């Protein structure tokens, strides 16, 4: 019975680790790729560590607590490193495939937002022609 439970935990962990790395390989831009390793791989390794803890606790006398230490450390550090990586990517202005969200509070029919749209559209046209341009121009 314990063997089947351990096998289930090990297979779950390995599959989640695999899916996380598959996401790292297949997804389109960096911000999407960040999701795979930070969530799926952490869960997979956590499952493997639980399997290891159960295995060594059942084999040896006493409870094996090394794995809990590693699990805790991984679960604390994974979000921190993901946050730092996202900050570095934003700092480097990496390209994102995500669409710009629509402002539902001020739809396009509104006069003010049309002016806003014109003001926001103008610098992007200038950005295409020259790299150095003032980010916002007052209309």
């Amino acid at each position, binding site marked *: 019975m314990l063997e089947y439970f351990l096998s289930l935990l090990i*297979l779950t962990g*390995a599959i989640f680790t695999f899916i996380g*790395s598959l996401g790292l390989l297949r997804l389109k831009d960096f911000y999407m790729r960040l999701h795979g*390793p930070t969530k799926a*791989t952490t869960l997979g390794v956590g499952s493997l560590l639980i399997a290891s803890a159960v295995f060594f606790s059942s084999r040896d006398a006493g409870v094996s607590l090394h794995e809990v230490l*590693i699990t805790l450390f*991984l679960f604390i550090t994974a979000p*921190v*490193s993901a946050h730092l990586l996202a*900050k570095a990517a934003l700092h480097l202005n990496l390209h994102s495939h995500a669409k710009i969200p629509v402002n539902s509070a001020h739809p396009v029919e509104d006069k003010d937002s049309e002016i806003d749209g014109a003001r926001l559209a103008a610098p992007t046209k200038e950005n295409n022609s020259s790299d150095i341009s003032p980010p916002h121009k007052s209309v």
Partner: protein
Amino acid sequence: MLDFAITVAFGLVTMAVGMCCWRLLRGPSTPDRILALDTLYVNAIALLMLLGIHLGNALFFEAALLIALMGFIGTVALCKYLLRGDIIE
């Protein structure tokens, strides 16, 4: 049953390591490569755990703990270098 599960898990995690290596070599941007390194060390911890269960040896945890510590410090140092141009200011 356990041996079969461990064999399959070894195969899956090894493929995961291969995909991380591909992203590490190909990655279009520097954060991609750092992310691939980050995933590689987590996969290395998974491989060490599997090896520990397979060989029945509890000594591998110390190595896994060291890899976890050093990997996190490495990721933070590389990100800090990208963000600030320097690691220790």
